[in-house]
């Protein structure tokens, strides 16, 4: 039975630069990179399986998780490994592949998931590297194939600023999406939940999905965050494991079984106020953004983000799209001084509080930059985070438990139910400019270390 859950708390940040629902004509990326830092918890260092100048095919293993060696990450494209970039303490930051014009694939074999056993499915996913798309809560890391999750969740809409429209992205891909769902159904003894937006015209691809539980949600961001949805449908208790994916990941899984290959093409939305014509691009996972942004930017000093402006990762002008990302945001850098900025009326400033007159114009679209608009302070204001976190959790108390490293308290206050992205709005609205997402990650890592 379809449940509809109405969420009231949250905030939609109206940014300028939404992607037009059209696919840009040509896009070729000459390089493609896999970044081990995209995979939380694989640190300190994954085990490399390739060297510079090695030739790889799409689906060739690149590296694996030392803690869980069965989880391997494979190349999304074929080509020659041009360089392995190392960062601080020799940690691998990028494995860059010079992409072949015509991608060659390793054949993992076509199969109908309905006829396969769970073991066969897990094996197919693991050896192709597609397993990495399945992530788990708690901890927000790649799922453990040994677990039997109590449920699998797919959020079929993204409410983050300028986020791509999944209905547009999955259009016409119903068959392969269903194959992906068939795979997931085999992986859990519980339900597969597909969460859609109640008040939008949702794609047939989602509505016609079979063997899954469809739930409807209404409300502002973060209603589209899977963590929020899990909390309202089947909350995570101590000891529970829940897996989650995006619809794009489900399609990649579907293609693995339909075509027998790791087909890493996916639609990426190029968004943000600094982009001249924001559109959708057909790209590979890990593609370079260089060609996408070339002569497509307004004058100025831009910041490039793989992902959305709340949770994404800062990348350079020739950087690569992250493994899990399906959006590139380009916004202005905020490296300027502003004369008595806190005192001016601020008609162009966006604030969740109503201390700027801009709250009188709710429809207005904003061009926001990366300035902090202040300095970090101790907590003074209370009740602010609660307004943008639609969960039965006391966010500030949880964060204080993390700051003091109190693991019992973190468990009691719901650390297992949260991930960084769920607290991104808390970080955005914070008057004291506290780095909330970093703290949540610190808490998750601490609890994971202590409980394993």
């Amino acid at each position: 039975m379809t449940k509809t859950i109405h969420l009231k708390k949250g905030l939609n940040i109206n940014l300028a630069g939404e992607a037009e629902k059209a696919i840009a004509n040509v896009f070729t990326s000459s390089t493609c990179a896999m970044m081990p830092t995209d995979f939380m918890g694989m640190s300190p260092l994954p085990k490399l399986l390739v060297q510079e100048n090695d030739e790889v095919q799409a689906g060739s293993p690149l590296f694996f998780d030392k803690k869980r060696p069965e989880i391997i990450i494979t190349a999304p494209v074929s080509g020659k490994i041009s360089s392995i970039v190392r960062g601080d303490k020799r940690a691998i930051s990028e494995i860059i592949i010079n992409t072949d014009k015509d991608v060659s694939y390793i054949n993992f074999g076509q199969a109908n998931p309905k006829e396969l056993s769970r073991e066969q499915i897990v094996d197919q996913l693991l050896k192709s590297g597609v397993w990495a798309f399945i992530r788990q809560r708690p901890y927000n890391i790649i799922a453990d194939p040994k677990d039997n999750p109590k449920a699998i969740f797919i959020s079929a809409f993204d409410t983050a600023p300028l986020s791509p429209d999944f209905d547009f992205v999955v259009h016409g891909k119903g068959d392969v999406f269903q194959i992906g769902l068939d795979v997931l159904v085999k992986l859990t003894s519980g339900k597969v939940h597909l969460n859609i937006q109640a008040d939008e015209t949702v794609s047939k691809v989602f509505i016609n999905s079979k063997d899954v539980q469809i739930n409807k949600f209404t409300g502002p961001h973060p209603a589209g965050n899977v963590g929020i949805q899990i909390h309202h449908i089947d909350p995570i208790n101590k000891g529970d494991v829940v897996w989650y994916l995006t619809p794009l990941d489900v399609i990649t899984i579907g293609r693995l079984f339909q075509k027998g290959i790791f087909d890493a093409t996916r639609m990426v939305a190029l968004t943000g106020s600094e982009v001249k014509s924001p559109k959708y691009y057909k790209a590979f996972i890990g593609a370079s953004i260089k060609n996408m942004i070339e002569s497509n930017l307004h004058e100025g000093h831009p910041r490039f983000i793989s992902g959305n402006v709340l949770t994404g990762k800062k990348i350079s002008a020739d950087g690569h799209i992250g493994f899990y990302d399906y959006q590139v945001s380009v916004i202005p850098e905020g490296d300027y001084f502003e004369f008595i900025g806190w005192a001016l009326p601020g008609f162009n400033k966006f604030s969740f509080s109503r201390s700027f007159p801009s709250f009188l114009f709710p429809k207005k679209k904003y061009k926001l930059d990366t300035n902090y608009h202040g300095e970090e302070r101790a907590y003074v204001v209370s009740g602010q985070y609660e307004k943008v976190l639609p969960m039965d959790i006391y966010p500030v108390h949880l964060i204080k438990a993390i700051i003091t490293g109190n693991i019992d308290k973190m468990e009691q206050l719901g650390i297992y139910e949260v991930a960084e992205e769920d607290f991104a709005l808390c970080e955005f609205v914070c008057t004291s400019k506290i780095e909330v997402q970093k703290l949540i990650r610190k808490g998750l890592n601490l609890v994971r270390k202590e409980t394993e």
Partner: protein
Amino acid sequence: MKFIKNILDKVEPSFRKGGKLSFLESTFDAFSTFLFVPNHTTHSGAHIRDAIDLKRTMTMVILALMPALLFGIWNVGHQHYLSHGHEFNSIFDMFLPKIIYGFLKIFPLIVVSYVVGLGIEFAFAQINGHKVNEGYLVSGMLIPLIVPPDIPLWMLAIATAFAVIIGKEVFGGTGMNVFNPALLARAFLFFAYPASMSGDNVWISEKADAVSGATPLAEAAAGNFGNMPSPLDMFLGFIPGSVGETSTLAILLGAVFLIITGIASLRIMISVFTGGLMMGLLFNLLGTNAYMNMPAYYHLIMGGFAFGAVFMATDPVSGSQTNTGKIIYGFLIGVFAVLIRVLNPAYPEGMMLSILLFNAFAPLIDHYVVGANINRRLKRTKIIKS
């Protein structure tokens, strides 16, 4: 603007580590960030941030205090001339002399409060290597508004120093304090210098001897209900009292501003007023003495009740921090303020003590509210596991 920035950039090195004036680094930072919002950009987490910061928040509270302050300035002059029996013939006379008189009385209070308080804040920030927190910008305005107009400046200075050092800095500065610093200053004055803080002689500036000068609270405590001003006068604030506390109307204007901007908690304000009114009504029911029989709503417009409800109880640091907790906290403040007023003749103003009392209890209230959340989570686990 460019030229101010150039000057700041030029002198900056001497305030940084190794510079001649490095012992003033926190002070320099405070002033330069006051003039220019820094060019810091996000490096982790959310790439965009809300335009609000503590400077903005505190500015909003100060703006909300303006009606009470302006009315207070006028009223100090008004009460003074009234007690001397001055006749004012023209509208012009009604305002200008009173405002000038009031301003000359109040301005020194504000200056002393800010100079002493900020001086200590800057010194502590420098010693601890912290940035100067904006919290005192509001405390520094609150303190002059809750003292009698004739308070000797040295007393105000000592009380301010006490509030900032013992009330705030020993706990670790703004955000860490248990008690509301401004109220602590008021409580310090009340207990250390009772003669200058209570009785009938302090509430009207340079009062003529022939006039009583008692505040409505004092009249009520003494049982002189015949001398009480009209409710309208009390609401509008044409009564003797602390500088900014007399006009409920001016305070409510500030409250509306705080609620619209979303800076102060509406929950707390409403529950304080509700608590006070309910307790007043309960006393009306009991009705064993004249004070109990006083109309319940009088409590809300007398003394510091409204000011406390709007500006003191809503202090997010010393108050309850959970939404449920805020309702309980506010309600109990209202109840106890009226309880202390009516039943304890030693303290005519119950509001100050009531808020300080529940500042102390706020963490306990939150503890139980958060405890309920923890229990909900535990219960859920058990149901599923069994």
